[in-house]
């Protein structure tokens, strides 16, 4: 299994600088996004595991754990939705990268055809037909690429909302943990783990949104 890459905001600034005025190709930004968001699945899994642990503790805690217990189901649902979103973002970003590569090849082909047409004006009509076909293919690929782009953006927004919800639940978790008597410490730890994982996801989403900015 590959290591989880974690680009920071300053790494992206650095990346933009390294291209020295060239725009970062869409297929690079989207493939990077797919790779960067992989760790989100890992953190969402950690949240789901924390929630399971909380369930086990609250079951043992009986009345002490009733308040916290009511929240765990909700946490698990959000974590599970986040995992699905993250996996879907990965798949859509990879498709986006693939179609962006195809589009670039078609564009290169069109540019070569145009050069041929200029070089051999007598035969340019024959080539024009090929060019028209190419332009139609390009339009289709453009549409496909934009479709993936929209999907990725929508999923990123959804996972960001999930994370916001998780962060606000953490506040409730702390309140309920403080009422859990002898189980207080364990449940505080769980709340902290959930908060940390949600924070890591937020950071990844912020990077994802930066990378999306480079795709436009």
């Amino acid at each position: 299994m590959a290591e989880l890459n974690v680009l920071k905001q300053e790494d992206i600034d650095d990346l933009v600088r390294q291209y020295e005025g060239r725009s970062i190709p869409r297929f690079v930004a989207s493939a990077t996004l797919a790779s960067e968001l992989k760790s989100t699945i890992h953190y969402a899994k950690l949240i789901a595991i924390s929630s399971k642990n909380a369930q086990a503790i609250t079951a043992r805690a009986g009345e002490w754990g009733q308040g916290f217990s009511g929240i765990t189901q909700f946490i698990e649902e959000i974590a599970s939705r986040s995992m699905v979103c993250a996996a879907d973002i990965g798949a859509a970003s990879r498709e986006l990268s693939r179609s962006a590569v195809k589009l670039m090849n078609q564009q290169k082909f069109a540019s070569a055809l145009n050069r041929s047409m200029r070089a051999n004006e007598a035969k340019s009509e024959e080539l024009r037909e090929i060019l028209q076909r190419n332009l139609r293919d390009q339009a289709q690929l453009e549409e496909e690429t934009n479709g993936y782009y929209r999907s990725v953006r929508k999923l990123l927004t959804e996972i960001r909302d999930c994370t916001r919800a998780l962060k606000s639940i953490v506040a409730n978790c702390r309140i309920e943990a403080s009422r859990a008597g002898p189980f207080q410490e364990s449940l505080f730890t769980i709340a902290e783990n959930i908060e940390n994982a949600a924070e890591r996801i937020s950071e990844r989403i912020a990077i994802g949104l930066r990378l999306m900015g480079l795709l436009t």
Partner: protein
Amino acid sequence: MHSEALWQGKRHKWIICGRDTGKPQKIIDTNQYMVRTDRRLLILEPGGIELFSAMLACALDWAPIHEITDLFASHQDPDIISSLGLWDQALPKARLHAPWLWEGFIRHFGMSHIEYVALPDDGGVLELDGVNLQLIPAHYMHSSGNFNVYDPELKILMSGDIGASLEPGQPPLFVENFKEHTRYMELFHKRWMPSNTAKNDWVARVRRLDIKYMAPQHGRIFKDDDVGRFLDWLEQLEVGSALRTANR
């Protein structure tokens, strides 16, 4: 595309990318290797155009794009380096290490940003973040300008097309039964290797290296005693089979 770290050194690791279930059926399966240090990633035999998207995604799992700084092409074949035009667009700053002999040919794949580092016939050293990889001449094995990459610390020889096998399906990464395995290598070596003289010269050169793993660009990897078995097998094999067919 499957990827995993195979060997770990003090400051670097070797990663394989391959067994791509998503590749078009009729193109030959290839192994791509990567050497990762703290700050750089070298891709050995980056592959063909058809593999590019999968390969880019795979490489990005191990390093951010600006740390992919070096490419190596043992020779000019399309399954080795026809993706160059796309890597050229993708990488902000990178160098391609490839035989001097093929520069004018390889540039046909498209290269405006990447720097071509022309390897002299007697090879040399590829330095990556303090890790020294030796470039071992393998000319006429099968290409007329051809190199292997040897890692003296981890005792790995990335042998390019030498040791390649054409095996159907998704075979395991390592040779398990050498004798059985020869049937998947025989045609490849008899036909794609043109010269017995070059072959024996290469075998003698490689025998002087301490090799624990021999990693070809197609098929399974040899380890431990299977490396020696491969050299013995290749040494006795008559290559250049098409010449005999043509003169019949």
